[in-house]
């Protein structure tokens, strides 16, 4: 957070540049677009938070980057990573990227490890898949990674099965496995949602310190703005499949540009005084089949005017490195007082 302006700001080419990424699923009869022209970018070593409610398309976007969506998904647009186009990359090439240049950890640590193989086997497999070498060297590397993520007695635990580990410990194993090939980018898809609060903060601290140590970039997919505040440099807010705001973290928390962002910040428990009722945004995210005409947020927006119901706004750059999808962003002042 101290480095709101990320390392090498402006000069370096972004590590990941996503432009107009769309994901559609073939349904029984109709085609449902779940992510609509999403764009975001991130530089080496930086952390981007992708925030949104359930159904906003944040997880689908991150899975799309690695080609992990089911075969019924159609992905279009562009995602350049380190000079390579990820969208529709041939399967063989994409496998060289997965787990090697870009890793991903998931929301469900309890079920994300294979119950039939030892933790050591799964870690060593991830390493040898990309780096080759002997089983012994890979096992040594696996032990080193377990130590790095704070698992005591790594040598002994390598021979154990996932059911011998608690949820928090399994997520540490997942982190160790995702980082075993020293990726340049780690995608963390709600990595702490399924964990106890105390374990959550431990895992967040671990990810922050590992990032500082290994210098990788991170995409943090979450619905928890508290998590965003503690780990991210940039934030992209998604609503109903679209990116509606992209801002550096400090600007976002003090002066959000989009009414939806302001609503999210306003509904954080920290925003209200003790004893006061928690605030919320009325209504729910529309399903992909019932997207409103005009601005997708207009039915829930307290600032909506006639134009909002008619014209779908574009994502506009505001000139100070921020982007917003709202025709009234210039006239609205959504300062958050705390």
């Amino acid at each position, binding site marked *: 957070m101290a480095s709101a302006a990320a390392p090498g700001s402006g000069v370096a080419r972004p590590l990941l540049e996503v432009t107009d990424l769309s994901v559609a699923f073939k349904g029984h009869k109709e085609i449902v677009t779940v992510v609509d022209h999403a764009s975001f970018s991130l530089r080496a070593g930086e952390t981007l938070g992708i925030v949104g409610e359930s159904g906003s398309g944040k997880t689908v976007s991150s899975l799309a980057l690695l080609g*992990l969506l089911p075969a019924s998904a159609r992905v279009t647009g562009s995602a350049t990573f380190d000079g390579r186009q990820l969208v529709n990359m041939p399967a063989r090439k994409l496998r060289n990227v997965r*787990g090697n240049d870009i890793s991903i950890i998931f929301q*469900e640590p309890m079920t994300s490890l*294979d*119950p*039939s193989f030892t933790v050591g086997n799964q870690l060593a497999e991830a390493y040898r*898949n*990309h780096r080759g070498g002997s089983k012994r060297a890979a096992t040594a590397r696996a032990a080193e990674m377990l130590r790095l993520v704070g698992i005591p007695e790594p040598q002994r635990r390598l021979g154990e*099965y996932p*059911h011998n580990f608690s949820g928090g410990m399994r997520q540490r194993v997942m982190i160790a496995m995702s980082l075993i090939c020293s990726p340049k980018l780690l995608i963390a898809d709600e990595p702490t949602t399924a964990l106890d609060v105390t374990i959550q903060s431990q895992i967040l601290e671990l990810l922050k310190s590992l990032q500082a140590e290994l210098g990788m970039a991170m995409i943090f997919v979450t619905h928890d703005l508290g998590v965003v505040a503690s780990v991210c440099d940039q934030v992209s807010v998604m609503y109903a499949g679209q990116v509606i705001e992209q801002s550096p973290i400090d600007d976002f928390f003090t002066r959000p540009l989009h009414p939806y962002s302001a609503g999210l910040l306003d509904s954080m428990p920290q925003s209200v005084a003790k004893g006061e009722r928690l605030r919320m945004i009325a209504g729910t995210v529309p399903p992909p089949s019932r997207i409103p005409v005009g601005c997708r947020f207009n039915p829930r927006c307290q600032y909506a005017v006639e134009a909002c119901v008619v014209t779908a706004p574009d994502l506009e750059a505001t000139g100070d490195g921020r982007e917003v999808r709202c025709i009234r962003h210039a006239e609205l002042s959504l300062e958050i007082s705390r």
Partner: protein
Amino acid sequence: MLTFIIRRIAALVPLLLIVSVIVFGLIVLVPGDASTTLAGGDQATPARILQVRHQLGLDRSFLSQYGRWAGHAIHLDFGRSLYSNQTITSEIWQRFPITLQIAGGALFFGLLIGVPLGIISGIRPRSVADRAVVFGTSAAIAMPSFWLALILILNFAVYRQILPSRGFVNFSDSPYEWFRHLLLPWIALGVLTAATIARQLRGALADVMASDHIRTSRSKGLAPLKVVGKHGLKNASAPVLTVVGLQVAYLVGGTVIVESIFGIAGLGSYVLTAVTRDDLPAIQGSVMFIALLTIIVNLLVDVSYALLNPKVRVE
């Protein structure tokens, strides 16, 4: 692991006891016995029949008959056949290897066909290939093995005389003829096994492939062969093993029909002959033997569960 196996074996003792009572008791429920035939058939005098019954011990109480039989059965001594006067055990040992070759070959055929079909189907549920497999296996399951055996004989031994319709040749005499004689019995018996294995593997693999840890394996950059072959199949194998265990019982039972159709002197046709002649000791001995065999196979299945699933070992 060793204590696991020992405990499982210990649990078999009461099971065997119950099975033996049932096997023995069933015979008592069957009306009539072999004494009339042995006493000379229709011309036998009632006194002669009673004498034979006494010789066979059939006039004693059920418990005393069972006690005497079970005491010997523990040592795998099931007495002598009422007709050939050979010991049942030696007759079973003569015929069992032949049945084992038929049932084993049919099981091998079932795995050879069933596993690949199950994989093709399970990795892409609802695909064209999957639908074809589901249709084909439904048809195969609906087809009785005796009928399939007759169709095979008609097509391959009668209309086109490619394969023999009857008989058995020892492998040591001529491997080629051995294969030619057993091929049709294997297929007749193994088609149902193949279909059952394919369906079971399809379901299990489809579930596993949709699981979170398979997504993890893919996200590690593993090749599809490794994702399916290592992580998919190992996790999908437990239900398939159960089916294989059950299929062994079906296959041994199925040999009764198939051996009669193909005129092979195995354990199946032995049981059939014994039943038609009321040869009590032979029926009891061979049914008990088949039960023991089934129990041992299921023990092996249990042990392989433990090898496959680390959680089972802990319990």
